[in-house]
């Protein structure tokens, strides 16, 4: 919110004339952000990042970054926490996985192309988000959070029970998106998906809808008094976020090629995304994305350094989130904007 105005004022003042910069700005990037994006895109071509396991980490980073943006779209703007985010993502993944299935292990073999399946999964996830939002968003935000959690647990239970379709806890193996064993093409696909998620959601938040979202998030009574129907906008926001969660889930299914309810849909997965979005800075959308990449690397380092201390990275996650929550709610995005402000202040 405040972060964005600071950024745009900065751009308007100094570089209004430059068409490239104004284009970047129109899709939600500052020159610095665009530079970071280019660096991230070129990373897998440079050693030491061109090793396959490093590319896998980068893919994980982009995957988490996109999730953080979609999550923050709801949590940071309308102040509703979708506590079943991971389960909805899993719903998209499983839907796409089942629709594209050709192996006789499962009861049905529709054999649709994964490129279509991903969107089918996304649409179903969006519809579930729509229904869930319609049911709970008339009430206080906490109802939506808890109900999304219940629905998430129920979805996990469904996946576990419909063994003919999902093989339950044994897990299923969806077909791959590409016929290649290299990770690099997948990296560019998820990077593109991340960009699409971010830019589309950014365009929405720039529109009148975005204004309504912010108004609702800041003061719902005042928003109502200004003639905004909070339920309508909140449901819309919730459904859109769920749609993208399902879409990303589809990528997960056809990239990792293995789905189990526990590793994909568990509440702790939602908490990981939530922590990322909050450490990045709520209401910024890009904060969580910036944090995601270094985080994945840091966590993988921690994991390989302290193999006997399983779960250490999760404790650090939680502690960071609490500290940010209580003492510095603007997160990394707030910090970056503060530095920017200092610099532009010094220049004048």
């Amino acid at each position, binding site marked *: 919110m405040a972060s964005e105005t600071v950024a745009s004022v900065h751009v308007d003042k100094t570089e209004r004339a430059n068409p490239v910069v104004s284009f970047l700005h129109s899709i939600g990037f500052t020159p610095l952000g665009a530079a970071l994006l280019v660096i991230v895109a070129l990373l897998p071509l440079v050693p030491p990042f061109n090793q396959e396991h490093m590319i896998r980490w980068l893919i994980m980073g982009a995957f988490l970054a996109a999730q953080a943006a979609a999550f923050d779209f709801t949590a940071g703007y309308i*102040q509703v*926490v979708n506590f079943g985010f991971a389960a909805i993502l899993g719903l998209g993944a499983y839907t796409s996985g089942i629709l594209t299935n050709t192996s006789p292990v499962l009861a049905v073999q529709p054999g649709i192309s994964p490129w279509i399946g991903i969107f089918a999964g996304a649409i179903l996830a969006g519809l579930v988000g729509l229904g869930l939002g319609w049911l709970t968003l008339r009430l206080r935000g906490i109802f939506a959070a808890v109900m999304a959690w*219940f629905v998430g*647990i129920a979805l996990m239970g469904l996946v576990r*029970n419909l063994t003919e379709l999902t093989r339950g806890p044994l897990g299923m193996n969806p077909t791959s998106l590409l016929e290649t064993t290299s990770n690099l093409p997948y990296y560019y696909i998820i990077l593109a998906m991340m960009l699409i998620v971010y830019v589309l959601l950014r365009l929405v938040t720039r529109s009148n809808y975005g204004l309504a979202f912010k108004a609702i998030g800041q003061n719902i009574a005042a928003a109502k008094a200004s003639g905004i129907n909070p339920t309508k906008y909140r449901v819309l926001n919730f459904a859109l976020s769920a749609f993208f969660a399902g879409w990303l889930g589809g990528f997960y299914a056809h990239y990792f090629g293995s789905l189990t309810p526990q590793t994909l849909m568990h509440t702790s997965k939602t*908490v990981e995304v*939530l*922590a990322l979005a909050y450490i990045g800075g709520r209401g910024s959308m890009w904060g969580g994305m910036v944090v995601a990449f270094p985080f994945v690397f840091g966590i993988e380092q921690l994991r390989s350094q302290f193999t006997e201390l399983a779960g250490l990275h999760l404790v650090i996650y*939680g502690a960071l989130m609490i500290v940010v929550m*209580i003492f510095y709610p603007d997160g990394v995005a707030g910090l970056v904007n503060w530095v920017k402000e200092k610099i532009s202040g010094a220049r004048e």
Partner: protein
Amino acid sequence: MVEKSSFGSSIMETITENLPASIVIVATIVLTIVIGVVTGPSQILNSIITGGMWALLAVGLALVFGVMNVPHFAHGESFMVGAYVAYFVFNPINTSLGESPNPFLGAIAPFIGILAAGVAGLILGVILERFLFYPLRLRTKQGWVMNAFLLTVGISFILTNGTTLVLGPNFRGIPRYWDVPPLTILGVTMAVDRVVAFFIAVVSIACLWFFLRRTRTGRAIRAVSQDELGAQMMGINLNFIFPLTFALATALAAISGASLLFMFQAYPTVGLQPLYMAWYVVMMAGLGNVIGAIVGGFIVAVLQTATQQFFGISWADVIPTVVMIVVLLVVPQGIFGSKIRSS
């Protein structure tokens, strides 16, 4: 300011004035009779005993929400801490008893463990309130419910993973608290532990009830739940009431974790199911409604038994959610009503 809870009215009034509640209660009784006819009295007794435990857990949750406006997501971790404390207190005593039997100590040892868990819960509650909720309250009251919710999520995450880190993911359990033959009630054999756990729940709830209704401090807690500002103007010190409330709720959860140690055992993620059940109860009964939480505990236990009986245990996660969707559609404020719709 809306009234956040209804300690004020008696149980009968709450029920008769509330149509959805009466319908649900009648339906629950019918369901109980059906279960009784189909499977015999054992399942009914089971439901009542489980209901007592869910009620004890849900009361703490309702209290924290009613008084502090905190949607407590680390309630299951209080349960987990209670289970661990009881294990680490009870087990050494039990081992030494194995070497030198002492019937009196043998009978009293489980209570020592459970009491220790309760005390640990009180301490943990005060610490969490002082060091986390208090600074957050100082910083901002805006968006409090969501912020507090996320804070408890963080607490839960740290406690669960921290326990894994320190104590490992392995299960620590005991086969039973009292090494005596099971009781027979109405022709049903029941482990003594289960019966005692039920009575611990009833006594704890009764104590809480007495405390809230009859003591000065208890009345102050109720006053805060009804009108925070008004209570402050009457000279009630929130910096005393909030830690006390949070400590009480944590202690109640710790006691239930301790008294169910023989059933659940102690491991880092043991709190998840109790947390789910407690939230389910308060969502159904009405957030912040303490009486509703007590009655709701038993209703949910019957529903749970019915689900397991008629659909099989693997659907235990799915059917209750469907029921909850219906409840939210028809009576979004909960069947006992808590007057907190929208915004």
